[in-house]
């Protein structure tokens, strides 16, 4: 048993227990359904801002874009405008595809030693595929939750809901994104446990968010399809939160505790977010290896750490020694 994932798993289990005891036994629905979510949103926004500003203040001493293509040099040599961007436009395009399609992950390779002792590098796309699926399904799931916060629901959200549930299995109809998300979270977890080298470098801070997200998805699916809750009452609370018009305590108590466990998990995720590796959401935009142009031969990058250096230029040198240089017959740029 690996301590890192065992403690993370235990932590998530304890969180669920806290919410369950709090709501089912102590009747603290207001705490778990109203106060903590509000605190979580504020902590998320403030924390997100602070972390981003911390990075914004950081020095970038060197121009260090990682390149994956021919740099711009002589006019007849074709250069790669996206993988080795020369202009801001190229950087924007590169960053866009990085964020939207995870191109860096697409280049993932796995080294292996062949029986004859030779080393080969194989293309390894599973992580890219599941990471992409994970992020997109998570995004869709978040967007689908708009129906709990908006009234009336704008058309794009309705269309998304229609597409996501078009298989029309069961009642309430299965939304594909939820189950795809559950599957991808499981994959990302199994990958960390199953591959020895990945297990070696995995920390508790890698497992905890995975378990937490798994908990969120699991409780979400569980209350939609199995341990049913009163959806109208749930929406009264969630809609009340964002429109500052909360329902009565009796109504809040009418929603099953599974709902509050779900909400508590989400609150914990929001509070945890800015102080964890999940900040790659904002951090990816500030990666110097991705957001800088490969134009060091054309544009000088000044290191802000540079202290002012007193230099003695050639012109000044010539001014000092001009007459002696002319006397000695040395060539000079300026002849009085």
């Amino acid at each position, binding site marked *: 048993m690996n301590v890192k994932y065992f403690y993370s798993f235990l932590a998530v289990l304890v969180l669920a227990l806290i919410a369950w005891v709090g709501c089912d036994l102590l009747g603290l629905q207001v705490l778990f359904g109203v106060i903590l979510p509000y605190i979580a949103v504020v902590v998320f926004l403030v924390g997100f801002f602070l972390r981003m500003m911390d990075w914004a203040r950081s020095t970038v001493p060197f121009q260090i874009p990682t390149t994956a293509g021919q740099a711009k040099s002589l006019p007849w040599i074709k250069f790669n405008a996206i993988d080795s961007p020369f202009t801001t436009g190229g950087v924007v395009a590169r960053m866009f595809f990085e964020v939207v399609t995870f191109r860096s992950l697409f280049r993932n390779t796995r080294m292996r030693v062949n029986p004859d002792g030779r080393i080969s590098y194989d293309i390894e796309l599973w992580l890219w595929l599941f990471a992409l699926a994970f992020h997109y399904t998570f995004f869709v799931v978040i967007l689908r939750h708009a129906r709990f916060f908006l*009234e009336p629901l704008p058309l794009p959200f309705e269309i998304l809901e229609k597409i996501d549930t078009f298989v*029309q299995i069961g*009642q309430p109809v299965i939304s594909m994104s939820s189950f795809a998300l559950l599957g991808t979270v499981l994959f990302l977890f199994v990958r960390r446990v199953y591959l020895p080298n990945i297990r070696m470098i995995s920390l508790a801070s890698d497992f905890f968010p995975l378990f937490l997200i798994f908990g969120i998805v699991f409780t979400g699916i569980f209350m939609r399809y199995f341990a049913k809750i*009163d959806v109208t009452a749930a*929406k009264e609370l969630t*809609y009340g939160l964002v429109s500052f*018009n909360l329902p009565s305590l009796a109504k809040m108590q009418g929603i099953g505790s599974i709902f509050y466990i779900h909400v508590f998990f989400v609150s914990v995720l929001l509070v945890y977010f800015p102080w964890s590796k999940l900040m790659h959401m*904002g951090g990816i935009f500030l990666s110097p290896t991705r957001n800088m142009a490969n134009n060091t031969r054309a544009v000088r990058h000044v290191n802000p750490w540079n202290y002012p250096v007193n230099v003695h230029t050639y012109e000044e040198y010539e001014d000092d020694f001009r007459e002696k240089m002319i006397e000695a017959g040395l060539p000079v740029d300026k002849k009085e």
Partner: protein
Amino acid sequence: MNDKGKIIAGIIIFFVVATFPFWFNMFVEKTPAPELVLTAKAQAAKVCVRDTAFMKANHMQLLDEWRDTVVRKAERIYVNAEGKEFNMSLSNTCLDCHSNKAEFCDRCHQYASIEPYCWDCHIDNPKETK
């Protein structure tokens, strides 16, 4: 980095998107929680097929089970815990009491932004007023 302006602009855009539900609801008229109207017949019956709490949360699953039982096994009688028998039919049993679809079914469905495909077919019942 000397890109603070751009970074702050990006953060502001993100915050505006992230807090969308808060300001969206400020511009849109607030919707009160749906209030259901029970018909005289429903009030007289007092109890639905199952208790109210169960029906609130599970009616869709019950209807789904009913549909499968009727269509696949041709069994039309549902017996609840009290031993009362019901004809498993949305149109003839449910909508018999709850004949006011607009004030009963639709209010919650609309509030929760759900469009059940039940109504794709069960719409021609004369007992149901749309």
